């Protein structure tokens, strides 16, 4: 890559020392929690909500809201990184990590190497199974100790904080086991298939 031109008169903010190794390249820290959506916020209520695991069209497991709430719950404190260049540090979430979900479904091993998450509103996102396991991802239902509000993905969203935040799909309703890494919504529209913020994989080809 060629040398970046100096923007005359510009002075960038230096990240605080405590944050320097927590903020990926091209990101800046924000204190608020911006809401980004591609369309209207879907309406879901706990009475009709359920979460399913599916493979080849067949349902492997299905939980109602009450059943989901009865699964082992985990709290995490993580940094999140949006592809639009903001990062938010020390966010607190509670939900069900993917590992106990699979255990509850009677799966000793995930049956496929990839997953496609389906959401209310038609949004999808693809992930390698490896990125969902070992406590790296959860279906989150609480943010900062309160029920996740709809604009932030409530009642439940995927949380995969080590990837750009569009992967943490709002209004998650289904995990589909897939044999291939089929692109989801943004991944079909020019965004990176994997989305590692530390390698700045924002767009296709990055």
């Amino acid at each position, binding site marked *: 890559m060629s040398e970046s*031109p100096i*923007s005359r008169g510009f002075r*960038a903010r230096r990240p605080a020392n405590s944050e320097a190794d927590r903020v990926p390249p091209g990101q800046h820290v924000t204190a*608020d*929690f911006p809401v980004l959506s591609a369309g209207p*916020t879907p309406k879901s209520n706990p009475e009709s909500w359920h979460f399913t695991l599916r493979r080849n069209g067949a349902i492997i497991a299905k939980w109602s809201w009450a059943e989901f709430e009865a699964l082992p719950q985990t709290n995490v404190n993580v940094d999140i990184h*949006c592809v639009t260049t903001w990062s938010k540090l020390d966010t607190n979430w509670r939900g069900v990590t993917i590992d106990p979900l699979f255990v509850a479904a009677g799966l000793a091993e995930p049956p496929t190497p990839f997953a496609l998450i389906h959401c209310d509103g038609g949004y999808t996102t693809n992930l390698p199974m490896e990125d969902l396991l070992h406590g790296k991802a959860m279906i989150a239902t609480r943010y900062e100790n309160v029920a996740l509000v709809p604009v932030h993905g409530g009642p439940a969203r995927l949380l995969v904080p080590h990837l750009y935040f569009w992967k943490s799909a709002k209004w998650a309703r289904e995990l589909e086991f897939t044999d291939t890494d089929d692109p989801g919504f943004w991944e079909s529209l*020019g965004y990176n298939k994997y989305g590692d913020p530390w390698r700045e994989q924002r767009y*296709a*080809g990055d």
Partner: protein
Amino acid sequence: MRATDAPAAVERPLSWVNAEVVELYEQSPKVRSLFLDVPSWPGHRAGQHLDLRLTDEAGYKAQRSYSIASAPRADRLELLVQRLDDGEASPYLTTELRPGDFFEIRGPIGGHFVWTSSMSGPLFLIAGGSGVAPLMAMLRHRAAAGSTIPAILLFSSRTLSDIIYREELDRLAAADSGLQIVHTLTGGSTSDWSGETGRIDRDMLAAAGFHPSEQPRIFVCGPASLIEDVARHLVVLGHEPRMVKTERFGPTGV
């Protein structure tokens, strides 16, 4: 389908390229247009955005996303930048930046919030403040393409002096019976104001917009609160959620 309408099948990396600032224009007290010369620009579709990167003398960088306001085939790229007093990039771009300065951009980016004149149905655009940028690209594209697809822009600004593109919008509407512009002011108006007043609400959307049976393609861009309210109202009015595309515009925090 023409090649320009195909979703960008991008598997090559988008590289950073130099953009030269060729002109600046103060659209309102807080919003400035940057006109850029980018010889290697591959072209874009109306509604897309780009990433902009500033580099200081010590090598520190700041990167932000901006919607493109210029039409796909315009000679110069136009971006709208709203100054956030406690921001990092926007105070520089709106005060310090001068013609002849350079920074880097890469793009175009995004294939969802996009409209081309070959798409069917009427076009209903709803903007808040500088969120008009990608919608302006659509209206300019529509005009340049000679499209007769009926279009409405419902545009919320704070005060009269905050209205961006007022003259150009008037000109476009005067020359085109298929285009209607409806302004609303949320921060007070004078007695001779003939437009709407107050935040965009359900009644305003019903009165100004197309009926759901006409299946308009709807694009909403502005601050998060406007988007959330407007999208909710549109669905209640009977528009299909899949016809409503939203894009947040504005600061990502302090």
